[in-house]
């Protein structure tokens, strides 16, 4: 009998209300790791009240003291770095390096939060009128929540939690019920950190707890990362309930490869972008557009390099690509590959039906390369969220940009080129929130906002960077005259 994980509320671990639970499996071994409770609105209410009650004391805790907690938190994460990355591998299925990279990115977000004492400073002006001074102050805004996805179970919560609380807010995290174990360890560390009770809270579960957070009158704002249809629902629900919201959705990220690019080096980079985390990330390269003569070279080199990727269990250091998250994800991805064939595309490397010796029950989909994808077909328009890279052909640079801008998504786009003019025009004209030039995964570092346009983002202020300081604070204008 596996254990059921607990919520963390008001400084202690508590059972969720009795309800159905969600089984958490290692997607490679199929080993049952734990059960995740499906917390109720009542569980959420307890957590929100704890966060609300903690707010006044926490906001008046000096910002340098709040930042000091982050210094200690970072040390704890560094000390448990390998343990955390191992848990990420086991519950998600990604490779060990990918898990380490995820933890590293999380640490960068803690680093960023240490800058809050500087970043929260505001401005002012003396003598805005005779003897009158006017200043701006930033204040924490209240109780914030984040609803985070399965694909980066440790990193994405850290995009939000450290900055939110260092700004003086209190916080509730609801992680994906598919991968709750990384956040369980995250909260074990936060528990050791000895923050005041109620500053950070963890509510495990699915739709009921997410809905309760979005509808609770004492929650000021919600951050979300997930698919576009859900992001749209989150945005609409939160705005209807008068909340701040930043909802990052799905993607269909294009990469243009120009004839002047170094094809072999570009393909090595594109490989990581397309098949890293088995394609289960919002910055995954989904479509490579070969421009002119680059198309055939790109297809040949991709086929050669994709075939050489080693798929296996993530805890084996030599594995270069792990599993997808579940059997249902595998079925969906394999079905989409079949549909693309029906639409006339050529499956150059077929990852369907892959078996990995010793892990026969795992949710494996091998790296897949699909060529001759046409505009407006499934692989050109729909997010796969799996290890599938499609190839399209454009006659010239302008056509490549047109193809990319037709997408309803606008998360990321990259160009591989040695031509500065094309790079500049790409940056200037492509409608995507994160642009890569000779970089396949245009992942913003923690001090920059994580971009996103069109159906890839709903809201005004993005996660990370100065946007996060704006999101987590309220500006107050003070006009003073002393006679």
């Amino acid at each position, binding site marked *: 009998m596996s254990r059921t994980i607990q919520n963390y509320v008001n400084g202690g671990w508590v059972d969720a209300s009795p309800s159905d639970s969600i089984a958490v499996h290692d997607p490679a071994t199929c080993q049952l790791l734990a059960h995740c409770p499906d917390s109720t609105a009542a569980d959420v209410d307890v957590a929100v009240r704890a966060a609300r009650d903690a707010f006044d004391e926490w906001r008046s805790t000096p910002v340098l003291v709040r930042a000091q907690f982050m210094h200690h938190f970072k040390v704890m994460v560094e000390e448990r770095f390998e343990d955390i990355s191992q848990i990420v591998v086991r519950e998600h299925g990604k490779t060990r*390096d990918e898990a380490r990279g995820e933890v590293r990115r999380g640490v960068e977000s803690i680093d960023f939060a240490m800058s809050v004492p500087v970043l929260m400073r505001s401005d002012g002006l003396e003598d805005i009128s005779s003897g009158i001074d006017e200043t701006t102050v930033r204040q924490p805004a209240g109780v914030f929540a984040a609803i985070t996805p399965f694909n980066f179970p440790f990193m994405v919560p850290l995009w939000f939690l450290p900055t939110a609380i260092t700004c003086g807010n209190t916080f509730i995290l609801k992680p994906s019920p598919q991968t709750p174990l990384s956040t369980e360890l995250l909260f074990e560390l936060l528990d050791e950190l000895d923050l005041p009770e109620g500053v950070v809270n963890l509510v495990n579960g699915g739709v009921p707890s997410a809905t309760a957070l979005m509808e609770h009158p004492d929650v000021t704002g919600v951050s979300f990362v997930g698919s576009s249809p859900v992001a749209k629902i989150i945005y609409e629900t939160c705005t209807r309930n008068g909340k701040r919201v930043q909802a990052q959705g799905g993607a269909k990220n294009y990469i243009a490869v120009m004839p002047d690019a170094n094809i072999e080096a570009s393909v090595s980079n594109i490989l990581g972008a397309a098949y890293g985390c088995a394609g289960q990330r919002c910055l995954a390269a989904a479509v490579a557009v070969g421009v002119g003569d680059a198309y055939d070279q790109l297809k040949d080199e991709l086929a050669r390099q994709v075939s050489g990727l080693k798929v296996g269990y993530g805890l084996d250091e*030599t594995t270069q690509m792990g599993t997808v998250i579940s059997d249902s994800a595998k079925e969906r991805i394999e079905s989409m590959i079949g549909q693309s064939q029906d639409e006339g595309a050529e499956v150059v490397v077929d990852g369907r039906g892959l078996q990995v010796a010793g892990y026969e029950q795992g949710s494996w989909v091998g790296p897949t390369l699909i060529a001759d994808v046409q505009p407006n077909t499934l692989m050109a328009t729909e997010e796969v969220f799996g290890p599938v890279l499609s190839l399209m052909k454009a006659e010239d640079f302008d056509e490549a940009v047109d193809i990319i801008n037709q997408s309803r998504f606008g998360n990321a786009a990259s160009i591989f080129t040695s031509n500065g003019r094309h790079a500049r025009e790409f940056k200037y004209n492509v409608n995507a929130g994160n642009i890569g030039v000779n970089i396949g995964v245009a992942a913003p570092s923690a001090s920059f906002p994580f971009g996103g346009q069109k159906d890839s983002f709903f809201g005004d202020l993005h996660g990370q960077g100065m946007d996060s300081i704006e999101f987590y604070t309220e500006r107050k204008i003070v006009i003073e005259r002393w006679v």
Partner: protein
Amino acid sequence: MASLNTFGAIMSHAIKLEARLGDWYGSIGEGGKARAADKRRRKLERARRENVLEITLEPIRGLDAADYALELDDGTAPCQAAAAEVAARFYADVAPKINVRAAQRALERCGKEHAALASGATG
């Protein structure tokens, strides 16, 4: 033996190599060399933790752990020199394959220390 085909596989091999050498140096009464190996191991652990960024996830080709097997039979000077030579060759081969400079530098430094041990330049 495993292929050294990822950043993690290379760094973990280096960490295990230093741990094994550290234990061995300790067992043959070479305390100074054991401490130096432990220091290198800790530096490499840090390099693995801090440099595993997206760009390091590109596949790495042409390296196999079997080519760097250590023969730690006894503590004689020739045996120590041979072990240091293997380690130095390992670092010389893997460092250019790592595309993050800080991690590459950590590997290069380890290689230099082993090369010095192999030539008897330091004790």
